[in-house]
Protein backbone atom coordinates (compact mmCIF):
# COMPACT_ATOMS: atom_id res chain seq x y z
CA UNK A 1 0.00 0.00 0.00
CA UNK A 2 1.61 3.29 -1.05
CA UNK A 3 1.78 5.96 1.62
CA UNK A 4 0.43 9.45 1.30
CA UNK A 5 2.86 11.81 -0.43
CA UNK A 6 5.34 13.21 2.08
CA UNK A 7 6.43 16.83 1.58
CA UNK A 8 10.05 17.88 1.35
CA UNK A 9 10.96 21.22 2.93
CA UNK A 10 12.68 24.01 1.04
CA UNK A 11 14.79 26.73 2.70
CA UNK A 12 11.77 29.05 2.86
CA UNK A 13 9.50 26.45 4.46
CA UNK A 14 11.95 24.67 6.78
CA UNK A 15 10.78 26.56 9.89
CA UNK A 16 7.16 25.57 9.22
CA UNK A 17 8.07 21.88 9.08
CA UNK A 18 10.47 22.17 12.03
CA UNK A 19 7.63 23.68 14.05
CA UNK A 20 5.29 20.91 12.93
CA UNK A 21 7.70 18.31 14.34
CA UNK A 22 7.38 20.06 17.73
CA UNK A 23 3.59 20.38 17.44
CA UNK A 24 3.73 24.12 16.79
CA UNK A 25 1.89 25.76 13.91
CA UNK A 26 4.58 28.21 12.79
CA UNK A 27 3.45 30.92 10.39
CA UNK A 28 4.73 34.39 9.56
CA UNK A 29 3.72 37.95 10.26
CA UNK A 30 4.88 41.16 8.59
CA UNK A 31 6.34 43.67 11.02
CA UNK A 32 5.71 46.51 8.55
CA UNK A 33 1.99 46.05 7.80
CA UNK A 34 1.11 43.71 10.65
CA UNK A 35 -0.59 41.05 8.54
CA UNK A 36 -0.10 37.34 9.16
CA UNK A 37 0.35 35.14 6.11
CA UNK A 38 0.74 31.60 4.84
CA UNK A 39 2.35 29.84 2.83
CA UNK A 40 5.91 30.62 3.98
CA UNK A 41 7.90 33.27 2.12
CA UNK A 42 10.81 35.42 3.33
CA UNK A 43 8.89 38.61 2.53
CA UNK A 44 5.35 39.88 2.96
CA UNK A 45 2.95 39.04 0.12
CA UNK A 46 0.81 42.04 1.05
CA UNK A 47 3.44 44.84 1.11
CA UNK A 48 6.70 43.14 -0.05
CA UNK A 49 8.52 44.08 3.17
CA UNK A 50 11.36 41.75 4.15
CA UNK A 51 10.84 42.66 7.80
CA UNK A 52 8.89 39.54 8.66
CA UNK A 53 9.00 37.11 11.55
CA UNK A 54 7.79 33.66 12.54
CA UNK A 55 5.32 33.09 15.35
CA UNK A 56 3.31 30.17 16.68
CA UNK A 57 -0.33 30.42 15.67
CA UNK A 58 -3.08 29.45 18.09
CA UNK A 59 -4.01 26.42 16.02
CA UNK A 60 -7.64 27.47 16.19
CA UNK A 61 -9.72 28.32 13.17
CA UNK A 62 -12.93 27.64 11.32
CA UNK A 63 -13.91 25.39 8.45
CA UNK A 64 -13.90 27.76 5.47
CA UNK A 65 -14.88 25.25 2.77
CA UNK A 66 -14.28 21.60 1.85
CA UNK A 67 -15.10 18.55 -0.21
CA UNK A 68 -15.69 14.98 0.96
CA UNK A 69 -13.57 12.98 -1.44
CA UNK A 70 -14.91 9.60 -2.53
CA UNK A 71 -12.21 8.89 -5.14
CA UNK A 72 -9.07 8.52 -3.04
CA UNK A 73 -5.66 9.71 -4.17
CA UNK A 74 -2.78 7.21 -4.23
CA UNK A 75 -1.98 6.33 -0.64
CA UNK A 76 -5.42 7.32 0.63
CA UNK A 77 -7.35 4.15 -0.19
CA UNK A 78 -7.80 3.34 3.51
CA UNK A 79 -9.18 6.77 4.34
CA UNK A 80 -11.94 7.34 1.76
CA UNK A 81 -14.24 9.08 2.00
CA UNK A 82 -12.14 11.81 3.56
CA UNK A 83 -12.43 15.55 4.01
CA UNK A 84 -10.14 17.87 2.04
CA UNK A 85 -10.67 21.23 3.65
CA UNK A 86 -9.47 24.79 3.69
CA UNK A 87 -9.44 26.22 7.20
CA UNK A 88 -9.20 29.88 8.07
CA UNK A 89 -6.93 30.38 11.08
CA UNK A 90 -7.87 32.81 13.84
CA UNK A 91 -4.88 34.90 12.75
CA UNK A 92 -6.34 35.25 9.22
CA UNK A 93 -4.43 33.02 6.79
CA UNK A 94 -6.01 29.96 5.22
CA UNK A 95 -4.48 26.57 4.55
CA UNK A 96 -5.45 23.22 3.09
CA UNK A 97 -5.74 20.28 5.46
CA UNK A 98 -7.84 17.24 6.34
CA UNK A 99 -10.58 17.28 8.95
CA UNK A 100 -10.30 14.18 11.12
CA UNK A 101 -11.94 12.91 14.29
CA UNK A 102 -15.43 13.19 12.88
CA UNK A 103 -17.58 11.00 10.64
CA UNK A 104 -17.23 12.72 7.22
CA UNK A 105 -20.82 13.73 6.49
CA UNK A 106 -22.17 17.16 5.47
CA UNK A 107 -24.30 17.20 8.64
CA UNK A 108 -21.22 16.90 10.83
CA UNK A 109 -19.34 19.55 8.88
CA UNK A 110 -21.24 22.84 8.74
CA UNK A 111 -19.37 25.69 7.10
CA UNK A 112 -17.59 27.83 9.74
CA UNK A 113 -17.37 24.88 12.18
CA UNK A 114 -14.74 25.75 14.84
CA UNK A 115 -11.68 23.54 14.38
CA UNK A 116 -8.29 23.09 16.03
CA UNK A 117 -5.00 21.69 14.84
CA UNK A 118 -3.91 18.15 15.64
CA UNK A 119 -0.67 16.58 14.53
CA UNK A 120 0.01 13.40 12.59
CA UNK A 121 3.61 12.25 12.30
CA UNK A 122 4.51 10.78 8.90
CA UNK A 123 8.22 10.08 9.39
CA UNK A 124 11.15 11.54 11.32
CA UNK A 125 11.12 14.75 9.24
CA UNK A 126 7.49 15.43 8.45
CA UNK A 127 4.54 15.85 10.77
CA UNK A 128 1.34 17.11 9.14
CA UNK A 129 -1.05 19.66 10.62
CA UNK A 130 -4.54 18.16 10.44
CA UNK A 131 -7.63 19.69 12.03
CA UNK A 132 -10.50 18.36 14.11
CA UNK A 133 -13.71 19.90 15.45
CA UNK A 134 -12.80 22.11 18.40
CA UNK A 135 -13.92 20.65 21.69
CA UNK A 136 -15.82 22.97 23.98
CA UNK A 137 -16.32 25.53 21.22
CA UNK A 138 -19.69 27.32 21.08
Amino acid sequence: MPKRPIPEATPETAEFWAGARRGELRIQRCNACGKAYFFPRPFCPHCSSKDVGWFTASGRGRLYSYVINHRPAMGFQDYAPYVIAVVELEEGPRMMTNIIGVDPTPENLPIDLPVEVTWEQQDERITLPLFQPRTGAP
Partner: protein
Amino acid sequence: MSAAVVGAAETDVVGVQPDKSAIQLHAEAALNALADAGLTKDDIDGVLCAGQSPVAVAEYLGIVPKFLDGTSVGGCSFMLHVRHAAAAIRAGLCTTALITHGQSGRSRVGESGWGGGRQTLSGQFEEPYGVAGPATRFTIPILRHMHEYGTTHEQLASVAVATRRWAELNPRAMMRDPLTIEDVLNSRVIAYPVHLLECCLVTDGGGALVVVSAERAKDFPKKPVYVLGTGESSEHSMISMMHDFTESRAFKVSGELAFAEAGISRADIDHAMFYDAFAHTPMFALEGLGFVGKGESGPFFEEMRTAPGGDFPLNTNGGGLSYTHTGMYGMFAIQESVRQLRGEAAAQLPNVRTSIAHGVGGMFHAAGTLILTNDERA
Protein backbone atom coordinates in the same frame (compact mmCIF):
# COMPACT_ATOMS: atom_id res chain seq x y z
CA MET B 1 -9.93 46.22 -33.60
CA SER B 2 -6.49 45.08 -34.59
CA ALA B 3 -6.76 41.37 -35.27
CA ALA B 4 -9.06 38.73 -36.65
CA VAL B 5 -9.40 34.96 -36.65
CA VAL B 6 -9.31 33.79 -40.27
CA GLY B 7 -8.72 30.09 -39.73
CA ALA B 8 -10.29 27.82 -37.14
CA ALA B 9 -10.64 24.07 -36.92
CA GLU B 10 -10.64 21.12 -34.56
CA THR B 11 -9.13 17.70 -35.04
CA ASP B 12 -11.09 15.39 -37.35
CA VAL B 13 -12.41 13.58 -34.29
CA VAL B 14 -12.82 14.72 -30.70
CA GLY B 15 -13.36 11.96 -28.20
CA VAL B 16 -11.29 8.80 -27.90
CA GLN B 17 -8.18 8.59 -30.11
CA PRO B 18 -5.60 6.15 -28.74
CA ASP B 19 -3.90 6.07 -32.16
CA LYS B 20 -2.68 9.69 -31.97
CA SER B 21 -0.11 11.35 -29.72
CA ALA B 22 -0.66 14.74 -28.12
CA ILE B 23 1.65 16.56 -30.53
CA GLN B 24 0.03 14.85 -33.50
CA LEU B 25 -3.31 16.23 -32.31
CA HIS B 26 -1.72 19.72 -32.30
CA ALA B 27 -0.48 19.15 -35.84
CA GLU B 28 -3.74 17.69 -37.19
CA ALA B 29 -5.69 20.65 -35.84
CA ALA B 30 -3.07 23.05 -37.22
CA LEU B 31 -3.24 21.59 -40.72
CA ASN B 32 -7.05 21.72 -40.61
CA ALA B 33 -6.95 25.38 -39.53
CA LEU B 34 -4.43 26.24 -42.26
CA ALA B 35 -6.70 24.62 -44.86
CA ASP B 36 -9.65 26.53 -43.42
CA ALA B 37 -7.68 29.78 -43.91
CA GLY B 38 -6.42 28.80 -47.37
CA LEU B 39 -2.81 28.98 -46.15
CA THR B 40 0.20 26.70 -45.99
CA LYS B 41 2.59 26.27 -43.11
CA ASP B 42 5.10 28.49 -44.92
CA ASP B 43 2.71 31.44 -44.46
CA ILE B 44 2.96 31.11 -40.66
CA ASP B 45 5.49 33.26 -38.80
CA GLY B 46 4.10 33.11 -35.28
CA VAL B 47 3.53 29.94 -33.22
CA LEU B 48 1.67 29.93 -29.90
CA CYS B 49 0.62 26.89 -27.93
CA ALA B 50 0.27 25.28 -24.52
CA GLY B 51 0.90 21.76 -23.31
CA GLN B 52 3.62 21.15 -25.86
CA SER B 53 6.47 23.61 -26.41
CA PRO B 54 5.95 25.97 -29.36
CA VAL B 55 9.47 24.94 -30.38
CA ALA B 56 8.34 21.33 -30.71
CA VAL B 57 5.12 22.25 -32.54
CA ALA B 58 7.00 24.51 -34.99
CA GLU B 59 9.52 21.75 -35.64
CA TYR B 60 6.82 19.09 -36.03
CA LEU B 61 4.99 21.21 -38.62
CA GLY B 62 8.15 22.49 -40.34
CA ILE B 63 7.54 26.14 -39.52
CA VAL B 64 10.30 28.77 -39.16
CA PRO B 65 8.84 31.10 -36.50
CA LYS B 66 9.67 34.74 -35.91
CA PHE B 67 7.45 34.91 -32.83
CA LEU B 68 6.96 32.24 -30.17
CA ASP B 69 4.66 32.17 -27.16
CA GLY B 70 4.45 29.15 -24.89
CA THR B 71 2.18 30.73 -22.29
CA SER B 72 0.79 27.71 -20.50
CA VAL B 73 -1.57 28.68 -17.69
CA GLY B 74 -4.09 25.88 -18.06
CA GLY B 75 -7.25 25.63 -20.07
CA CYS B 76 -7.58 29.35 -20.76
CA SER B 77 -4.10 29.57 -22.33
CA PHE B 78 -5.59 29.92 -25.81
CA MET B 79 -7.57 33.01 -24.85
CA LEU B 80 -4.25 34.51 -23.77
CA HIS B 81 -2.63 33.33 -27.01
CA VAL B 82 -5.22 35.18 -29.11
CA ARG B 83 -4.59 38.29 -26.99
CA HIS B 84 -0.82 37.92 -27.33
CA ALA B 85 -1.02 37.20 -31.05
CA ALA B 86 -3.07 40.35 -31.57
CA ALA B 87 -0.48 42.35 -29.63
CA ALA B 88 2.43 40.78 -31.51
CA ILE B 89 0.80 41.51 -34.87
CA ARG B 90 0.09 45.09 -33.79
CA ALA B 91 3.73 45.46 -32.73
CA GLY B 92 5.00 44.05 -36.02
CA LEU B 93 6.58 40.96 -34.47
CA CYS B 94 4.71 38.61 -36.77
CA THR B 95 1.95 38.75 -39.39
CA THR B 96 0.26 35.34 -39.37
CA ALA B 97 -0.04 33.56 -36.07
CA LEU B 98 -0.91 29.90 -35.53
CA ILE B 99 -2.35 28.89 -32.14
CA THR B 100 -2.56 25.18 -31.44
CA HIS B 101 -3.98 22.83 -28.85
CA GLY B 102 -3.78 19.07 -28.74
CA GLN B 103 -4.14 16.77 -25.81
CA SER B 104 -4.37 13.06 -25.34
CA GLY B 105 -6.20 13.66 -22.11
CA ARG B 106 -8.03 10.35 -22.08
CA SER B 107 -5.64 7.96 -23.83
CA ARG B 108 -2.50 9.66 -22.42
CA VAL B 109 -0.41 9.05 -25.55
CA GLY B 110 2.69 11.24 -25.60
CA GLU B 111 1.55 13.27 -22.58
CA SER B 112 3.79 14.44 -19.79
CA GLY B 113 2.94 13.26 -16.29
CA TRP B 114 1.02 14.85 -13.45
CA GLY B 115 2.42 16.54 -10.39
CA GLY B 116 5.47 18.63 -9.73
CA GLY B 117 7.41 16.97 -6.93
CA ARG B 118 7.57 16.99 -3.19
CA GLN B 119 9.34 20.34 -2.86
CA THR B 120 6.79 22.31 -4.89
CA LEU B 121 4.17 24.39 -3.11
CA SER B 122 1.51 21.88 -4.07
CA GLY B 123 3.78 19.02 -3.02
CA GLN B 124 4.15 20.57 0.43
CA PHE B 125 0.76 22.12 1.08
CA GLU B 126 -1.83 20.27 -1.05
CA GLU B 127 -0.79 16.78 -2.07
CA PRO B 128 -0.19 15.50 1.50
CA TYR B 129 -3.92 15.98 2.09
CA GLY B 130 -5.02 13.57 -0.60
CA VAL B 131 -6.01 15.83 -3.46
CA ALA B 132 -6.77 13.66 -6.47
CA GLY B 133 -6.93 15.85 -9.54
CA PRO B 134 -9.15 18.84 -10.26
CA ALA B 135 -12.30 17.23 -8.81
CA THR B 136 -10.85 17.61 -5.31
CA ARG B 137 -9.34 21.10 -5.62
CA PHE B 138 -11.35 23.11 -8.17
CA THR B 139 -14.49 22.16 -6.26
CA ILE B 140 -13.57 23.24 -2.72
CA PRO B 141 -15.10 26.74 -3.13
CA ILE B 142 -18.57 25.37 -3.96
CA LEU B 143 -19.80 24.77 -0.40
CA ARG B 144 -18.74 28.29 0.57
CA HIS B 145 -20.82 29.72 -2.30
CA MET B 146 -23.77 27.56 -1.25
CA HIS B 147 -23.36 28.72 2.35
CA GLU B 148 -23.10 32.43 1.53
CA TYR B 149 -25.80 32.64 -1.16
CA GLY B 150 -28.11 29.69 -0.65
CA THR B 151 -27.03 28.11 -3.91
CA THR B 152 -28.62 24.64 -4.07
CA HIS B 153 -27.63 21.20 -5.35
CA GLU B 154 -30.49 21.46 -7.85
CA GLN B 155 -29.14 24.74 -9.18
CA LEU B 156 -25.69 23.22 -9.68
CA ALA B 157 -27.24 20.21 -11.41
CA SER B 158 -29.23 22.50 -13.70
CA VAL B 159 -25.98 23.72 -15.26
CA ALA B 160 -25.26 20.18 -16.46
CA VAL B 161 -28.86 19.73 -17.64
CA ALA B 162 -28.94 22.99 -19.64
CA THR B 163 -25.60 22.17 -21.23
CA ARG B 164 -26.72 18.66 -22.19
CA ARG B 165 -29.68 20.14 -24.09
CA TRP B 166 -27.20 21.88 -26.38
CA ALA B 167 -25.17 18.67 -26.76
CA GLU B 168 -28.31 16.88 -27.91
CA LEU B 169 -28.20 19.22 -30.94
CA ASN B 170 -24.51 18.56 -31.72
CA PRO B 171 -23.67 15.26 -33.50
CA ARG B 172 -19.99 15.59 -32.48
CA ALA B 173 -20.81 15.77 -28.77
CA MET B 174 -19.74 12.77 -26.71
CA MET B 175 -22.76 12.77 -24.36
CA ARG B 176 -26.11 13.33 -26.07
CA ASP B 177 -28.72 11.43 -24.05
CA PRO B 178 -31.34 13.63 -22.40
CA LEU B 179 -30.55 14.45 -18.78
CA THR B 180 -32.68 15.49 -15.81
CA ILE B 181 -31.84 17.17 -12.52
CA GLU B 182 -32.62 13.86 -10.81
CA ASP B 183 -30.20 12.00 -13.11
CA VAL B 184 -27.44 14.41 -12.09
CA LEU B 185 -28.18 14.25 -8.38
CA ASN B 186 -28.47 10.44 -8.50
CA SER B 187 -25.10 10.04 -10.23
CA ARG B 188 -22.14 8.91 -8.15
CA VAL B 189 -20.68 11.39 -5.66
CA ILE B 190 -17.12 12.13 -6.73
CA ALA B 191 -16.24 14.72 -4.11
CA TYR B 192 -19.22 16.02 -2.15
CA PRO B 193 -20.97 18.25 -3.20
CA VAL B 194 -19.95 17.25 -6.75
CA HIS B 195 -21.62 14.40 -8.62
CA LEU B 196 -20.15 12.60 -11.62
CA LEU B 197 -22.47 14.36 -14.08
CA GLU B 198 -21.33 17.74 -12.76
CA CYS B 199 -17.75 16.94 -13.85
CA CYS B 200 -16.34 17.54 -17.32
CA LEU B 201 -15.51 14.72 -19.71
CA VAL B 202 -11.97 13.43 -20.26
CA THR B 203 -11.20 13.15 -23.97
CA ASP B 204 -8.58 13.35 -26.73
CA GLY B 205 -8.60 16.09 -29.35
CA GLY B 206 -7.28 19.42 -30.46
CA GLY B 207 -8.01 22.70 -32.15
CA ALA B 208 -6.15 25.50 -33.87
CA LEU B 209 -6.62 29.12 -34.90
CA VAL B 210 -4.99 31.42 -37.45
CA VAL B 211 -4.85 35.09 -36.47
CA VAL B 212 -3.90 38.01 -38.74
CA SER B 213 -4.35 41.79 -38.70
CA ALA B 214 -7.88 43.08 -39.14
CA GLU B 215 -6.77 44.87 -42.32
CA ARG B 216 -5.97 41.52 -43.98
CA ALA B 217 -9.02 39.71 -42.63
CA LYS B 218 -11.06 39.87 -45.81
CA ASP B 219 -8.33 38.25 -47.92
CA PHE B 220 -9.29 34.78 -46.68
CA PRO B 221 -12.01 32.33 -47.70
CA LYS B 222 -14.07 32.38 -44.51
CA LYS B 223 -16.06 35.16 -42.88
CA PRO B 224 -13.63 36.98 -40.54
CA VAL B 225 -14.11 36.92 -36.80
CA TYR B 226 -12.69 40.09 -35.29
CA VAL B 227 -11.04 40.32 -31.90
CA LEU B 228 -12.98 43.12 -30.23
CA GLY B 229 -11.79 42.87 -26.62
CA THR B 230 -9.41 40.72 -24.61
CA GLY B 231 -8.40 40.19 -21.01
CA GLU B 232 -6.24 37.97 -18.86
CA SER B 233 -5.26 37.61 -15.23
CA SER B 234 -4.17 35.15 -12.57
CA GLU B 235 -4.82 34.70 -8.89
CA HIS B 236 -3.11 31.80 -7.12
CA SER B 237 -1.36 28.49 -7.73
CA MET B 238 -3.06 26.68 -4.84
CA ILE B 239 -6.83 26.79 -4.37
CA SER B 240 -6.39 27.45 -0.63
CA MET B 241 -4.97 30.87 -1.55
CA MET B 242 -8.07 32.01 -3.49
CA HIS B 243 -8.92 35.44 -2.07
CA ASP B 244 -12.65 34.84 -1.67
CA PHE B 245 -14.11 31.39 -2.31
CA THR B 246 -17.36 32.89 -3.60
CA GLU B 247 -15.79 34.77 -6.52
CA SER B 248 -12.86 34.63 -8.90
CA ARG B 249 -10.69 37.73 -8.83
CA ALA B 250 -9.01 36.56 -12.03
CA PHE B 251 -12.39 36.31 -13.79
CA LYS B 252 -13.31 39.83 -12.70
CA VAL B 253 -10.02 41.41 -13.79
CA SER B 254 -9.94 39.58 -17.11
CA GLY B 255 -13.60 40.33 -17.86
CA GLU B 256 -13.28 44.02 -17.05
CA LEU B 257 -10.28 44.32 -19.37
CA ALA B 258 -12.13 42.64 -22.22
CA PHE B 259 -15.29 44.73 -21.89
CA ALA B 260 -13.29 47.95 -21.51
CA GLU B 261 -11.34 47.22 -24.69
CA ALA B 262 -14.43 46.13 -26.60
CA GLY B 263 -16.38 49.21 -25.56
CA ILE B 264 -19.65 47.27 -25.38
CA SER B 265 -21.93 46.35 -22.50
CA ARG B 266 -22.98 42.96 -21.13
CA ALA B 267 -26.37 43.42 -22.80
CA ASP B 268 -24.64 43.60 -26.20
CA ILE B 269 -23.42 39.97 -25.95
CA ASP B 270 -25.42 37.58 -28.16
CA HIS B 271 -23.67 34.30 -27.35
CA ALA B 272 -21.43 33.04 -24.56
CA MET B 273 -18.94 30.26 -23.98
CA PHE B 274 -17.90 29.89 -20.32
CA TYR B 275 -15.37 27.16 -19.59
CA ASP B 276 -17.26 24.44 -17.72
CA ALA B 277 -14.77 22.16 -16.02
CA PHE B 278 -17.42 21.56 -13.37
CA ALA B 279 -20.99 22.76 -12.96
CA HIS B 280 -19.93 25.65 -10.76
CA THR B 281 -17.36 27.22 -13.09
CA PRO B 282 -19.97 28.81 -15.44
CA MET B 283 -21.78 30.08 -12.33
CA PHE B 284 -18.63 31.83 -11.15
CA ALA B 285 -18.14 33.20 -14.69
CA LEU B 286 -21.69 34.53 -14.98
CA GLU B 287 -21.19 36.43 -11.71
CA GLY B 288 -17.52 37.33 -12.15
CA LEU B 289 -18.04 38.77 -15.61
CA GLY B 290 -20.89 40.92 -14.34
CA PHE B 291 -23.83 39.36 -16.20
CA VAL B 292 -25.61 38.87 -12.87
CA GLY B 293 -24.96 40.07 -9.33
CA LYS B 294 -23.05 38.08 -6.74
CA GLY B 295 -24.91 34.95 -5.69
CA GLU B 296 -27.52 35.30 -8.45
CA SER B 297 -26.21 32.64 -10.83
CA GLY B 298 -27.99 29.72 -9.17
CA PRO B 299 -31.55 30.86 -9.91
CA PHE B 300 -30.42 32.02 -13.38
CA PHE B 301 -29.35 28.50 -14.32
CA GLU B 302 -32.30 26.89 -12.59
CA GLU B 303 -34.65 28.91 -14.81
CA MET B 304 -32.93 27.29 -17.83
CA ARG B 305 -32.10 30.70 -19.29
CA THR B 306 -28.85 29.27 -20.74
CA ALA B 307 -30.52 26.27 -22.43
CA PRO B 308 -31.87 26.16 -26.01
CA GLY B 309 -34.74 28.63 -26.19
CA GLY B 310 -33.42 30.67 -23.26
CA ASP B 311 -32.41 34.32 -23.40
CA PHE B 312 -28.72 33.64 -22.64
CA PRO B 313 -27.44 30.89 -24.97
CA LEU B 314 -24.38 29.43 -23.25
CA ASN B 315 -21.99 26.60 -24.16
CA THR B 316 -23.87 25.82 -27.33
CA ASN B 317 -21.49 23.05 -28.39
CA GLY B 318 -22.43 21.04 -25.30
CA GLY B 319 -19.48 22.34 -23.29
CA GLY B 320 -16.79 20.52 -21.40
CA LEU B 321 -19.59 18.74 -19.56
CA SER B 322 -21.10 17.05 -22.63
CA TYR B 323 -19.17 17.93 -25.82
CA THR B 324 -15.50 17.31 -25.11
CA HIS B 325 -12.84 18.12 -22.55
CA THR B 326 -9.28 17.21 -23.41
CA GLY B 327 -7.79 18.83 -20.32
CA MET B 328 -7.28 22.36 -21.64
CA TYR B 329 -10.74 22.94 -23.04
CA GLY B 330 -10.52 26.70 -23.72
CA MET B 331 -9.60 26.13 -27.37
CA PHE B 332 -12.96 24.42 -27.95
CA ALA B 333 -14.84 27.32 -26.39
CA ILE B 334 -13.16 29.70 -28.86
CA GLN B 335 -13.88 27.32 -31.75
CA GLU B 336 -17.60 27.38 -30.95
CA SER B 337 -17.62 31.18 -30.69
CA VAL B 338 -16.02 31.34 -34.15
CA ARG B 339 -18.51 28.83 -35.57
CA GLN B 340 -21.47 30.78 -34.19
CA LEU B 341 -20.11 34.06 -35.60
CA ARG B 342 -19.51 32.44 -38.99
CA GLY B 343 -22.91 30.75 -39.01
CA GLU B 344 -21.36 27.25 -39.04
CA ALA B 345 -22.39 25.87 -35.66
CA ALA B 346 -24.26 22.58 -35.21
CA ALA B 347 -26.77 24.37 -32.97
CA GLN B 348 -26.61 27.64 -34.89
CA LEU B 349 -28.26 30.66 -33.28
CA PRO B 350 -29.90 33.35 -35.44
CA ASN B 351 -28.29 36.78 -35.77
CA VAL B 352 -25.15 36.31 -33.68
CA ARG B 353 -23.06 39.47 -33.87
CA THR B 354 -21.02 39.19 -30.67
CA SER B 355 -19.72 36.27 -28.65
CA ILE B 356 -17.73 36.04 -25.44
CA ALA B 357 -15.36 33.14 -24.81
CA HIS B 358 -14.17 33.04 -21.22
CA GLY B 359 -11.69 30.49 -19.96
CA VAL B 360 -10.37 29.38 -16.62
CA GLY B 361 -6.86 28.02 -16.10
CA GLY B 362 -6.05 25.44 -13.47
CA MET B 363 -8.26 25.54 -10.37
CA PHE B 364 -9.36 29.18 -10.66
CA HIS B 365 -5.62 29.86 -11.05
CA ALA B 366 -5.88 32.03 -14.17
CA ALA B 367 -8.41 33.46 -16.60
CA GLY B 368 -8.63 34.69 -20.17
CA THR B 369 -11.50 36.43 -21.93
CA LEU B 370 -12.18 37.13 -25.61
CA ILE B 371 -15.00 39.24 -27.01
CA LEU B 372 -15.38 38.45 -30.69
CA THR B 373 -17.56 39.86 -33.44
CA ASN B 374 -18.33 39.32 -37.11
CA ASP B 375 -19.16 43.00 -37.56
CA GLU B 376 -16.25 44.87 -39.08
CA ARG B 377 -17.83 48.18 -38.04
CA ALA B 378 -17.91 47.21 -34.35
